[in-house]
């Protein structure tokens, strides 16, 4: 069927070419054109509406054309651009073998080669043709307006699949360590019914660390309850992203305390120790939240023994110990001079005949009050949340190590 249609359209194109002396021009003013049946008429209508909206808002014509009759993708793109309803725009041209994206007008200055590649990646990451084209419209608009995409750089996995709970893209762990950690995280995640994930990456691809962590969690098939620790080596960022029950189990204060114990290992580069500690603490925090109150202000986990307690206790103890012994020692000395003669003061003989209190002067000092450094969120306890790009609620925190 397809080959026959291809032959026919090829023949038609050749005939038309001969007849008109120039190639068949795409329909004037139409943003999305599909000669190859990738999209249904309804889907085309919807895409044209969405792209029309973008055109209206921004003046950018986001166009796409599918025409296998063209042998040159570049030619197709340029031809289509000629019929654009705006002087500025971008055309995605698709022939049988190739794709080509052609920005024109002002857009030619905005879209770099990498951004065009990223646009394509974003589109093909979508599971079907319609959502791929929608993603393309959205991404193109954002690049045109903001210079880059806030769209996830993360490639979502197809539904029904899940990425492993350890994704060591920055290669911080040896193979054995990765396997051990994965085994541990899988065990905890299954037992607690709450995903505990570790992700390392070399780059955030220009994204915000919190957004990257949120998106990574959202797009990789993890369950709706869980926590993710993201380590980015680019600027030594870390971020925690919690979702669902994870938000309940890991309060803002709880995450503070958790990272206090993970960060020392992270900073010294003992990544496996850091992730191992993280896994154990997550297990502990989730158990605590399931069985009672989540760890929060006034309900913090036992931090175990702190070495500095020894000298501190010994110092305070010595003050008391030697104080009491010296007091006992001083009991043995009782022969002392009298300092005063108060016992022989004639009662009532004090007669104050002159008494003046003269005000002299005042001195005023003003000292700026120290600003309270704690954020408002840490006062009441609990978890603060935000909405990720995919529209789901996340908790989290982030910092540098």
């Amino acid at each position, binding site marked *: 069927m397809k080959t026959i249609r291809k032959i026919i359209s090829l023949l038609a194109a050749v005939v038309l070419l001969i007849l008109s002396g120039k190639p068949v021009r795409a329909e004037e003013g139409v943003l999305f054109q599909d000669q190859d049946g990738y999209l249904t008429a309804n889907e085309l209508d919807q895409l044209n509406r969405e792209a029309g909206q973008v055109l209206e808002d921004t003046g950018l014509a986001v166009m796409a054309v599918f025409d296998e009759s063209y042998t040159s993708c570049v030619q197709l793109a340029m031809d289509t651009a000629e019929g654009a309803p705006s002087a500025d725009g971008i055309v995605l041209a698709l022939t049988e073998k190739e794709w080509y994206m052609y920005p024109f007008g002002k857009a030619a200055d905005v879209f770099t080669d990498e951004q065009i590649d990223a646009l394509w990646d974003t589109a093909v990451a979508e599971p079907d043709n319609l959502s791929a084209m929608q993603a393309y419209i959205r991404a193109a608009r954002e690049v045109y307006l903001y210079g880059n995409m806030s769209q996830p750089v993360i490639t979502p996995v197809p539904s029904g699949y899940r990425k492993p709970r350890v994704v060591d893209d920055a290669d911080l762990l040896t193979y054995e360590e990765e396997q051990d950690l994965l085994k541990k995280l899988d065990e905890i995640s299954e037992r607690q019914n709450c995903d505990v994930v570790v992700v390392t990456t070399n780059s955030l691809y220009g994204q915000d660390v919190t957004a990257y962590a949120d998106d990574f969690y959202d797009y990789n098939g993890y369950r709706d309850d869980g926590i993710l620790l993201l380590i980015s080596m680019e600027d030594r960022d870390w971020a925690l992203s919690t979702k669902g029950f994870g938000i309940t189990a890991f309060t803002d204060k709880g995450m503070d305390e958790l990272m206090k114990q993970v960060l020392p290992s992270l900073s010294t580069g003992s990544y496996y120790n850091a992730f191992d500690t993280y896994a154990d603490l997550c297990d502990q925090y989730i158990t605590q939240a399931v069985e009672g109150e989540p760890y929060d202000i006034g309900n*913090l*986990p*036992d*931090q175990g*023994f*702190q070495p500095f*307690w*020894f000298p*501190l*206790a*010994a110092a*305070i*103890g*010595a003050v*008391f*110990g*030697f104080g*009491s*012994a*010296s007091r*006992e*020692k001083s*009991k*043995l*000395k*009782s*022969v*002392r*001079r*009298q*300092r*005063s*003669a*108060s*016992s*022989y*003061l*004639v009662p009532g*003989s*004090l*007669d*104050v*005949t*002159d*008494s*003046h*209190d*003269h*005000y*002299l*002067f*005042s*001195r*005023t*000092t*003003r*000292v*700026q*009050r120290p600003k309270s450094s704690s954020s408002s969120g840490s006062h009441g306890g609990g978890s603060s949340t935000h909405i990720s790009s995919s529209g789901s609620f996340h908790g989290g925190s982030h910092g540098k190590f």
Partner: protein
Amino acid sequence: MSNLTEFKCPNCGGPLEFDSTIQKLRCPYCRSTYTIEELDAQDIENNANEPISLEWDAGTSDWKEEEIDAMAEYVCRSCGGTIVTDRTTSATSCPFCGNPVVMNDQVSGMLRPDLVIPFKLDKEAAKEGLRRHLSDKKLLPRVFTEENHIDEIKGVYVPFWLFDADVRADMRYRATRVRSWTEGDYNVTETSYYSVYRGGTLSFSAVPVDGSRKMDDILMEAIEPFDVTAAVPFSTAYLAGYYADKYDVSDEETFGRANERIKTSTMSTFDSTVVGYSGVNPQGVNIRLNRGMAQYALYPVWLLNTSWQGQQYTFAMNGQTGKFVGDLPVDNGRYWIMALRNTGIVALILLLIMMFVLR
């Protein structure tokens, strides 16, 4: 006229002793008791009938002049034995028959005390005082209580000079008052300075200073205060059964010490009239004393001597109030054990609190 008085029982002729519990003289043989007034009348009689002269021959001895000056010799009226004492002793007991005697010349004339506070507490109270003094002292060497024995307990009338003084004081202070409040983002502190003046008068009565060189001044101050309102006009009968000294430091020499104490008291009394300030600093002090006649008094003191490991320990108890003082040896080993043990206990408790509470 030097003589020795022994108070003989008008009933049986035995030597009388002053009994502090009944505040009368008592005969240990027939148990008759006599008030001071009854005996005073008899005392005059005794002296009239049986004058006793000082038997002292300086020419035949090899004593040096200053030693002779420091010594006195008496003949005991009970047994005829010769009692040799120093010149400041005015009451003692006969070393031969043990009967209490009073050297009349040491208490008569211008040396005669104006006042005496009679003993209120007896020897048993002094022993009990020592027992209590030694108890509840954790760092006292254990063996001290067991090994030490009281060498001597004696009730001594110690000579004191009593000074009355009217004080006129003019005091200047620099005082500050601090107020704090917050204004927007600022903590504001206002310090106000004041010049404060206080002038007035104050009276002290009977500030005592030890008038005996033999007695340790600090030990005597440590058992203060004495309540001079319980003092009575002097009578030699009170000395019966006790030791007594006469002063050998003049009132002029001792007044310096009384002055010092009065000054300190005056300052602190006036300081306490400056109220309502957060800080008070004396700037100028002018204290003038108007002192009255010094009185000569005998105050009752129990002295206990013990020795332990070749060292003398002297304790003193106020014969009127029972206040007991005396420095004791320190067991250094036990001091360290106690210090380290308590350090350990407190540190352990702190660690437990840190582990189980502060988490």
